[in-house]
């Protein structure tokens, strides 16, 4: 592979890039994807797309691969005596907040002169809270961030609306796993890199649009608007899914490191599910079928229903401790997902869409 996977993943996991402010991730991908793409596009919604043209005369059918790159995090609301109150960007579990290390992206001096200021989330002592504050888990509105700086300095650097990301550094754990913040969904972005890397050395017939989408964790902006810009014939969405582990053993969970998932549900065209499953078997890529009774949960929700509709299928990377700063994913699974997508796309004949019917 042209790109060293583990350093690439670590680089992705060290960047901020909250929903609505994904520039730091775009910068990384700008460098990483340049050697393996014909064209790089930033969409109006903030997504970043690598285009690989198919071989032979144009026009070619198009496939869109979506892996959202945005992170959940916090946003500064009020500033009192240098202490920062905040709200969430995306679904943050408030139980994990006390004591978390964060970075405040301070733009009070202008966006071009922004500064990253380290801080931590703190829980005030109970006697300082209003009488009706809960005694158990404190809500977001009662916590705040302390940067250690003097109030005047904080006012100079930080303003209302500044983005705050979790500062947890990525770490390799046993069994070829990696942990950190935003493995949801940067591990899928890494899988997309693996896929693009393999495809860059193949003579695939289809145009490939590798799309690191924006704002999936909040409003799905990338998934709503990118398909209109690209108009693909089919779409693959790769996102993390629930892995078995402490607190997570329902029907939706699968073993970590034992393979990826292919989703079957209303967002997944049954023919694509069938084709992808058969291919995974042929390639000895371990996988399981994940049942999704309802819609939602990934970019597929809006991509599938863009304009006149796009046949879509979802691939899942099992992950433990979703939406905490210590998410855990198997690196083997990342490679598997990337490889499956690449082989699938490389195998597509020009007229593949004629086979994609309802039966």
């Amino acid at each position: 592979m042209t790109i060293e996977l583990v350093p690439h993943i670590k680089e992705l996991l060290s960047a901020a890039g909250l929903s609505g402010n994904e520039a730091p991730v775009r910068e990384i991908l700008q460098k990483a994807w340049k050697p393996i793409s014909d064209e790089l596009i930033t969409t109006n919604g903030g997504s970043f797309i690598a285009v690989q043209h198919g071989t032979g005369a144009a026009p070619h059918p198009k496939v869109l691969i979506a892996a959202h790159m945005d992170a959940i995090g916090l946003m500064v609301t009020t500033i009192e005596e240098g202490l920062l109150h905040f709200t969430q960007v995306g679904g943050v579990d408030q139980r994990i907040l006390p004591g978390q290390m964060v970075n405040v992206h301070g733009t009070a001096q202008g966006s071009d002169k922004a500064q990253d200021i380290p801080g931590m989330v703190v829980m005030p002592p109970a006697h300082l809270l209003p009488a009706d504050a809960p005694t158990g888990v404190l809500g977001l509105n009662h916590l705040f961030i302390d940067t250690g700086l003097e109030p005047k300095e904080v006012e100079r650097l930080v303003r209302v609306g500044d983005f705050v990301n979790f500062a947890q550094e990525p770490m390799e754990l046993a069994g070829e796993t990696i942990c950190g913040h935003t493995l949801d969904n940067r591990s899928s972005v890494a899988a997309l890199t693996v896929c693009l890397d393999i495809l860059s050395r193949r003579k695939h017939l289809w145009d490939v649009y590798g799309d690191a989408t924006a704002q999936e964790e909040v409003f799905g902006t990338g998934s709503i608007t990118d398909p209109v810009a690209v108009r693909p014939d089919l779409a693959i969405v790769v996102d993390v899914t629930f892995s078995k582990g402490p607190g997570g053993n329902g029907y939706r969970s699968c073993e970590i490191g034992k393979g990826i998932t292919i989703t079957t549900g209303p967002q997944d065209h049954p023919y694509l599910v069938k084709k992808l499953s058969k291919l995974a078997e042929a390639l000895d890529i371990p996988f399981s079928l994940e049942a999704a009774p309802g819609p939602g949960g990934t970019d597929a929700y809006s991509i599938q229903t863009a304009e006149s509709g796009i046949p879509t299928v979802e691939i899942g990377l099992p992950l433990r401790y979703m939406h905490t700063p210590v998410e855990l994913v198997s690196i083997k699974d990342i490679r598997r997902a990337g490889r499956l997508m690449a082989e699938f796309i490389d195998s597509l004949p020009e007229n593949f869409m004629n086979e994609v019917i309802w039966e």
Partner: protein
Amino acid sequence: MATQNKVKSINFSLGKKEIDLLTRLCNAVSVSGDEQKVRQIVLEEVKNLADEVKTDALGNVLVTKKGSGPNCLRVMLSGHMDEVGMMIVKESEDGTYEFRVIGGIDPRQLVGKLVLVGRNLVPGVIGAKAIHMTTPEERKVAIPVEQLRIDLGPGAKVAIGDRATFATKLAVLGPSIRSKAFDDRLGVFNLIQLLKHAPANVDLFLAFTVQEELGLRGAKVAAFSFDPQIGIALDSTPANDLPFFEGDEENTHYNTHLGAGPAIYLMDGATIGDRRLVNWLSESADAAGIPWQYRQPGTGGTDAGAIHKTRAGVPSVSVSVPQRYLHSAAGLVRKQDVVNTFKLIHTALSRLDPSILNS
């Protein structure tokens, strides 16, 4: 108040052929995301009656029948092929199957029922522990879906992702019909009838949609493809018109009354009906002596919710057949309401003046 009937409505009744079609439609297992069984019936019925028939990326069946003469308005009508039901999500250790509900079904409707699973209609039951082994306290609490299982009998197998419904078979009970899935096989049925008796003065764009119960997803893409000037959703809505349990308080939240005719929507949770179209429908009913009622403004939604927001906007309205016990194993409608709903739509379309959109 007697008025001269200014318009003659079409001669239509539920004869053997019609009941047979409705029976096949209602008995079919066609849950949101896997509407294949109803799609097959629809494709068979519309064959040779339409100018164009297409199945799109999500599985909607899009049928076009042009009118004749100048100034035909492009009218889109929609009826959804999906019903609420269940999905198999996991095989349990004892060979029974864990499942989840698709769409809104009250869990108390599930227990002690016969179901059919998958394309092969494998029969099964959702059982409950023997009453002898329960305590009175236990019997007061509804069993949550997570604890229910579908039992196919030892050795039978179905696949993860298979859909299931109640095994109800349609039955005519005097002036009424009892069945599952009136929502929205009645809409599908009326669309087919409309195609069989197509009014010549409009261009008909009939959308047999998918996944309405999951957020109007099929209608969104169908409307984009059709790009109509007017949208009409045909659905079924609750008749909560039973008397109060105690006393003779007036029932002010009946939604609709069974037997009072097709229900015209003023406003639901997804659409504010265009008043020009609402009035066009009620005036058409009055002119032809067809009984009608308003569906009480409130929550809920129909495909019109997606249609009216498409592209540059489409004035839309909904009409439903009143039904008691919606989303249960056994819904009840009056034959006359079904007949009058079709008559209303047909009459209204036949006298639709293109200038309606000018006001």
